């Protein structure tokens, strides 16, 4: 069974994320230990707290390094809300005026404040997504126009629109999910998005399982050759 670690940086309860992944057939567990993060088949980085606080904790604890290593090793990754934002180069939240906080730098771009455009910020509630070709895997079986639960005041501004898996309009058009190889992120909370959210989590678990299977095949092939 695919072992998926839900990274705990001690800011909130991760039970719904863990439960959602387990229900989709994964062996999900919550851990704050960099060793567990390195050893797991896939990493889920949930979203709690501010960009600056989360990065400070993750760097100090060694979690940041472990997450980057896991991604470099080709293991699937899913960032949720702040967890998606942290994937990028830099963020404004919690930084002093005009400054930036360095992110995990796995994807190119910045995390910036959601402009109000006469609308209320935070962007709270159920909003719809418009899925791109990039989003096919993560949103398999989910159609454009489906609603997901959002709660955020910051958005990702990716350097390359090619990584955008779906868009959402809220005064501005922003990336509500990203996908690049086996690295995925969603600005909404799939674990709080009822049936549609369950489908997204299930798709991610399937991606992890496929990945595991091909790795085992590779390993067996390798053994056969030696």
């Amino acid at each position: 069974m695919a072992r998926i670690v839900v990274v705990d940086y001690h800011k909130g309860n991760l039970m719904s994320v863990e439960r959602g992944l387990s229900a989709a057939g994964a062996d999900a567990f919550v851990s704050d230990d960099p060793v567990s993060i390195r050893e797991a088949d896939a990493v889920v980085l949930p979203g709690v707290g501010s960009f600056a606080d989360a990065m400070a904790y993750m760097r100090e604890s060694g979690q940041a390094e472990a997450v980057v290593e896991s991604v470099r090793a080709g293991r699937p990754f899913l960032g949720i809300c702040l967890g998606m934002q942290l994937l990028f180069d830099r963020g404004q939240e919690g930084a002093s005026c005009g400054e930036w906080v360095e992110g995990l730098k796995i994807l190119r771009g910045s995390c910036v404040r959601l402009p109000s455009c006469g609308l209320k910020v935070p962007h709270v509630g159920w909003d719809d997504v418009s899925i791109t070709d990039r989003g096919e895997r993560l949103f398999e079986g989910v159609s454009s126009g489906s609603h997901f639960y959002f709660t955020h005041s910051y958005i990702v501004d990716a350097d390359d629109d090619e990584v955008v898996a779906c868009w959402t309009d809220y005064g501005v058009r922003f990336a509500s999910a990203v996908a690049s190889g086996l690295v995925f992120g969603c600005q909404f909370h799939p674990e709080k998005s009822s049936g549609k959210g369950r489908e997204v989590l299930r798709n991610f678990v399937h991606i992890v399982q496929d990945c595991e299977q091909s790795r085992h095949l590779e390993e067996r092939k390798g053994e056969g050759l030696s």
Partner: protein
Amino acid sequence: MLTKRVIPCLDAKDGRVVKGVNFVGLRDAGNPVELARFYDAEGADEVVFLDITATSDKRETTIEMASEAARQLSIPYAVGGGFRDVAGMRTMVAAGADKVSLNSAAVADPSLIEAAAAAFGSQAVVCAIDAKRVGVPGAPGADRWEVFVAGGRKATGIDAVWWAQECARRGAGEILLTSMDRDGTKDGFDIALTRAVSRAVPIPVIASGGVGSLEHFAEGIIDGEADAVLAASVFHFGTYTVKQVKEYMAAQGIPVRLDF
């Protein structure tokens, strides 16, 4: 497009639902989490648990309820009532609550809002305001409302619209606005109050108090300019299902989530 939310509210005392509920198919209609699950399946966008437990030594049951809700619900939920400090809120957030709702404690010590927003983020902090109209409706200068605390028993002399702005300024992520005049009447939301607060703050406003008909839900959004509508008894007594409410709202041109 961001949809307007429909939120059932459950009053819980010592971990049990207070108002009488009678639904077919519920094993235990007094269990707040089971009732919330029912609303989740019916398409509720969120639920609010209001803890009206009088004594603090019974707080354990509410914390257990919150962690059970985290296990069983697939939509966000807020817990309100009885918070005095950040430590108490932290216990609830750690148990799994997506949001905590502050009322009397924030009025007594407004810095609590800032502390909560710093600790959990604004998205997790709801300020609940119980407001009562001052003066006779229609009379000059009558569109003013006063904040009440202690379950609506105690007047504070604070202007409700000003207080809502103050809550937002201090870092609240949402306002849960209840009209004391309308609560329990089934006469509909206090539209003037809802609109005054909605226009005054840059954060979402949840209208509460007075819903008796399907029209009232739509009025809260269209005329009251609220971002979400909350109700208790019309759902608990089975007058309307959440789905019925949403279908009615959709027919009035209000964006709602029907793909559940």
